[in-house]
């Protein structure tokens, strides 16, 4: 059994075992799940060092089309696999303590295992069909996990919202897949890549138009999954789920799946420059809007959620520059500066420090007895030193503190990718400032100063089972930027070509420090937020807008349905048939003339008719 298949199916087996066997015992289920993820982690580490090769299982054949469970291994797959299993393992261990007193531990860990299975499937996929199937599975796992505390209405609604918005994106995704299938006759990535190269010569304009459409449709899937504008509203609501879930799914892995998919099929963008432009704009808009909203949020998890949105916007923005510059199309293993590589680099560093930040916030929430409002925290530096320290490292990585943190290198590469278009580059730079600003706000208010409530007074450091993952992630947040580590993952972080020498790093660092400084100035020692911008605090009113659109649409459909029902079905068919029958009946009743001669007359008519038809017109 090839190694990748073990990684793929082991979590599924664990989930099935939990579902069928150990439902009643939370502790046993937890152990099963943790065990499976540790084994897969070991396998993934082995894969990093070269084990595992491509393989394929035929799943089903329909006429000429075969759907396989196919596995494609390149450097990105190996590194993504490691990220998924490593962060997954840390989240599992963290949850052992975090969810200790929960009633439905078995369900939680079953959901986590299902998620690991689905995410692994996306990472390993070599064809669109498999990717789509696991894409949907990831959505289902997300639904289950967000709605873990389903007794709370807000959690159930958030789970539904996440799933529905994902579905909207997936609809576009499916159309894109079908168009590509129509153009090239195959669903696997390598076949499509080859198919497009061959077809590039023939009927260019028609191909190009369809290809652009297909790429945009496929991007819809990424819009849904990676919560880009306009389908971004589900991610902040998804914070209703337990914090470890937010860390795993909504920071590091699932939302990154959209970017991962874009990176994997970035060969499409070389032939569809229009689509690439659209992608970069959407990424840029998302990054900017999310950063703006984050500056006014009071819930620690919401701030981090918008931060995730913003960073995902960065990654998508970078992907949109594929094929723009003078860089030729290269394979995924090269180190020539491919914007897709920049996006992927940022994805991989972001996974570590965002997971760290979320788990850190989880630790804080745990310590403050499930208090999530940052204005009710404070003074945690003294009471939870390890958590504060790791959180600081994570924040630094997010802000891109020069040379020390991995975030610096990855953010830098993203900015370098966008440099060719000032109208994208400038907003990206402003977002750097905003990121620094709101993260400083968060850190200063939650961790520094005095305790602002009783919960914060009585906080104490979390047990080792919870802070060890934090420490490990902090190490990676720094180490992932080192050259030899990144080489392990397929590229050299210190030798990414930059245009204009050190201009970009300097600009970015300036903006970052400016944000930190201003943040400190404004928020140091404050008891409540001195700035109040309702537009931002209300998330630009998108939720209300969407609700309004849905309501208008529903009302229209309901009205039409009611009209159809009343006029067509009720009036025409049901009552109409009745009326016709009654009318015919009363018409025919006239035939019962009641008098002898009338009957005789009709009789005579009948005879004439018979004679005519039988004899005369034979």
């Amino acid at each position, binding site marked *: 059994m090839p190694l990748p298949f073990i990684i793929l199916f082991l979590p599924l087996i664990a989930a099935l075992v939990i579902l069928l066997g150990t439902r009643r015992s939370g502790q046993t289920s937890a152990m099963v799940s943790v065990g499976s993820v540790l084994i897969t982690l070991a396998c993934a580490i082995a894969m990093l060092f070269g084990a595992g090769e491509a393989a394929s299982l035929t799943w089903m054949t329909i006429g000429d089309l075969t759907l396989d469970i196919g596995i494609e291994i390149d450097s990105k797959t190996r590194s993504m696999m490691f990220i998924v299993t490593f962060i997954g393992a840390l989240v599992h261990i963290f949850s052992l303590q975090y969810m200790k007193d929960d009633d439905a531990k078995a369900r939680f860990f079953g959901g986590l295992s299902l998620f690991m299975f689905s995410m692994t499937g996306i990472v390993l996929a070599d064809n669109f069909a498999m990717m789509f199937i696991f894409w949907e599975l990831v959505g289902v796992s997300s639904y289950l996990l967000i709605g873990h505390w389903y007794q709370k209405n807000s959690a159930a609604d958030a789970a539904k919202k996440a799933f529905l918005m994902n579905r909207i994106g997936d609809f576009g995704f499916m159309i894109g897949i079908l168009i590509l299938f129509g153009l090239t006759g195959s669903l696997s990535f390598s076949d499509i890549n080859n198919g497009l190269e061959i077809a590039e010569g023939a009927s260019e304009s028609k191909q190009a138009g369809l290809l652009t459409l297909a790429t945009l449709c496929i991007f819809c899937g990424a819009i849904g999954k990676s919560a880009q504008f306009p389908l971004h509203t589900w991610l902040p609501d998804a914070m209703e789920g337990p914090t470890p879930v937010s860390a795993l799914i909504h920071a590091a892995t699932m939302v990154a799946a959209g970017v991962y998919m874009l990176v994997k099929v970035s060969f499409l963008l070389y032939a569809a420059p229009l689509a690439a432009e659209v992608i970069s704009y959407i990424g840029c808009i998302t990054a900017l809007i999310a950063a703006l909203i984050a500056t006014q949020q009071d819930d620690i998890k919401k701030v981090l959620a918008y931060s995730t949105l913003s960073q995902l916007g960065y990654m998508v923005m970078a992907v949109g520059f594929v094929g723009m510059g003078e860089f030729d199309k290269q394979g995924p293993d090269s180190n020539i500066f491919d914007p897709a590589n920049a996006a992927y680099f940022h994805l991989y560093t972001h996974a570590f420090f965002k997971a760290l930040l979320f788990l850190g916030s989880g630790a804080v929430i745990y310590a403050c007895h499930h208090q999530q409002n940052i204005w009710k925290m404070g003074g945690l530096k003294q009471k939870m030193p390890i958590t504060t320290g790791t959180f600081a490292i994570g924040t630094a990585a997010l802000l891109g503190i020069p040379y020390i943190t991995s975030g610096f290198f990855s953010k830098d590469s993203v900015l370098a990718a966008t440099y060719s278009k000032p109208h994208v580059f400038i907003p990206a730079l402003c977002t750097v400032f905003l990121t620094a600003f709101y993260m400083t706000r968060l850190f200063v208010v939650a961790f520094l100063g005095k305790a602002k409530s009783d919960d914060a007074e009585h906080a104490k450091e979390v047990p080792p089972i919870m802070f060890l993952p934090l420490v490990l992630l902090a190490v990676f947040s720094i180490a992932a930027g080192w050259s030899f580590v990144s080489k392990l993952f397929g590229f050299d972080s210190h030798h990414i070509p930059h245009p204009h020498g050190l201009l970009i790093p300097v600009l970015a660092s300036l903006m970052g420090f400016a944000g930190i400084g201003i943040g400190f100035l404004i928020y140091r020692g404050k008891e409540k937020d001195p700035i109040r911008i309702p537009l931002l605090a209300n998330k630009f009113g998108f939720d209300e807008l969407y609700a309004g659109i849905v309501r208008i649409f529903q009302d229209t459909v309901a009205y039409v349905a009611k009209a159809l029902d009343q006029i067509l079905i009720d009036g025409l068919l049901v009552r109409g048939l009745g009326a016709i029958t009654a009318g015919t009946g009363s018409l025919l009743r*006239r035939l*019962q003339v*009641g*008098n002898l*001669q009338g009957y*005789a007359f009709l009789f*005579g008519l009948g005879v004439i008719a018979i004679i005519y038809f039988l004899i005369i017109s034979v």
Partner: protein
Amino acid sequence: MVSLNEYLLVSGLLFAIGFAGVLLRRNIIVIFMCLEIMLSAANLSLVAFSRFNLSEAGVPNYNGQVLVFFIITVAAAEVALGLAIIVALFRARRTVHVEDLDSMKN
């Protein structure tokens, strides 16, 4: 020499007259008589066919005439019964006008 068609024509005309009488007269007895006319027309055409269909021996095909015999018999029985019914009807309704017998209308 008369041909078959002429006999048939006459028979048909007689039938038509009888049918017109059934449709147009209002007295039930007269309607009954017109029914008899129609029956007789049929008898005429049967006998005509019987005479004109000679077998090889030059003998008419007597099936037609036997049938006419039966028809006459049955018609006689039918008249007896029909008139009995009409008498009973007359006793009940005190009328012989067929238009007044319309309780089955609609």
